[in-house]
């Protein structure tokens, strides 16, 4: 029976749920973002923009929740088989992921705010803009949003690559402990 909270040697259901919800959200938002910017103007394009923005704000909320959850839970130990240098690298990678998970939606939110576009999350609730209208700020936020996209894509490749390496090369339980089924 999986516990809601984390234990010393594994992630609880809360952390796993947040991890995989956010993972699915990020994959969808990145894909939507890539498709929508390359579409010519059409109703579909604007619907994808609305969806992308709603998803981004949802991810931002989930990431904040996840940070709080991590704060009030213990973090499982890394496997002892990892060298101190590898542990440091893994820690830095996860820090980068958390930072990017915040910066990605925030830069999009600023971009939308600086353009003074309204933002209605999934047609349910309109959230206020963060900044006054500013073309300069919108351009800066746009460049940052795209830069963060590429950095996030690179860190995600490393993250997924590392998880697969743990499972298939190192044969430890790092990947398995983020899955609901933990049979050896």
């Amino acid at each position: 029976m999986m516990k809601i909270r984390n234990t010393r040697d594994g992630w609880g259901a809360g952390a796993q749920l947040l991890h995989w919800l956010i993972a699915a959200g990020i994959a969808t938002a990145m894909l939507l973002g890539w498709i929508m910017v390359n579409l010519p103007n059409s109703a579909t394009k604007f619907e994808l923009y609305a969806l992308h923005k709603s998803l981004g704000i949802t991810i931002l909320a989930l990431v904040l929740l996840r940070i709080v959850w991590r704060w009030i839970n213990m973090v499982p130990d890394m496997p002892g088989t990892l060298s101190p240098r590898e542990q440091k690298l893994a820690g830095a990678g996860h820090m980068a992921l958390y930072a990017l998970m915040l910066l990605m939606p925030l830069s999009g939110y600023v971009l939308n705010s600086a353009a003074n576009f309204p933002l209605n999350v999934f047609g349910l609730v309109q959230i206020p803009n963060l900044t006054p209208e500013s073309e300069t700020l919108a351009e800066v936020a746009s460049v940052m949003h795209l830069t963060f996209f590429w950095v996030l894509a690179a860190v995600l490749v490393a993250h997924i690559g590392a998880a697969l390496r743990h499972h298939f090369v190192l044969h430890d339980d790092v990947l398995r402990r983020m899955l609901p089924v933990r049979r050896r």
Partner: protein
Amino acid sequence: MFRSTSSSAGRFSLGLGLGVIASALPMLASSAATGWEIVHDESRLGFEATQQGGRFEGRFEDFRADMRFSADDLAMSRFDVTVATGSINTGSSQRDSNLPDAEWFDTDAFPEAYYVTREIRATTDGYEAVGDLTIRDNTHEVVLPFTWQTEGDRAEMNGAVTIDRVRFGVGQGEWRDPSVAGHEVKVVVDLTLER
């Protein structure tokens, strides 16, 4: 040779005579319904619309109106409003850069929009103006409910009416889709006037 026998000169003078009488009529009318000047610094011709499901506001910076209103002479009360479509301001340079385009207001071809009342009548809550709104040469009747409060030589007029932008051809082609910009636009009139 000045004593013209041509009938065209006769028609001309007849036309002139009628014109003088016709132009005198509003002056007669104004003796009953008061003429009002808009205090532009304290007035707003605004609207509320939606973009991708989110609400935003805008306004027309440049408009003028011939306003005649007397609560006790509604028959002679009349609004004749002209709006410079290019003066639209929604506080978003990206959005505002699109609005003068041919798909939206086409400000080159249609620099002005008009609202001319045909009747102003009392309602339980105040008044309503029945008039013709013309945008991009599309004219449709629009009934504008409003309140009017006169205090000395100043007056406040507040009214709002929701119109369908598509009926007036505003936002065509790919912009026609309601997910891009909602079809319903609430026009909000808040005027301060002086006589």
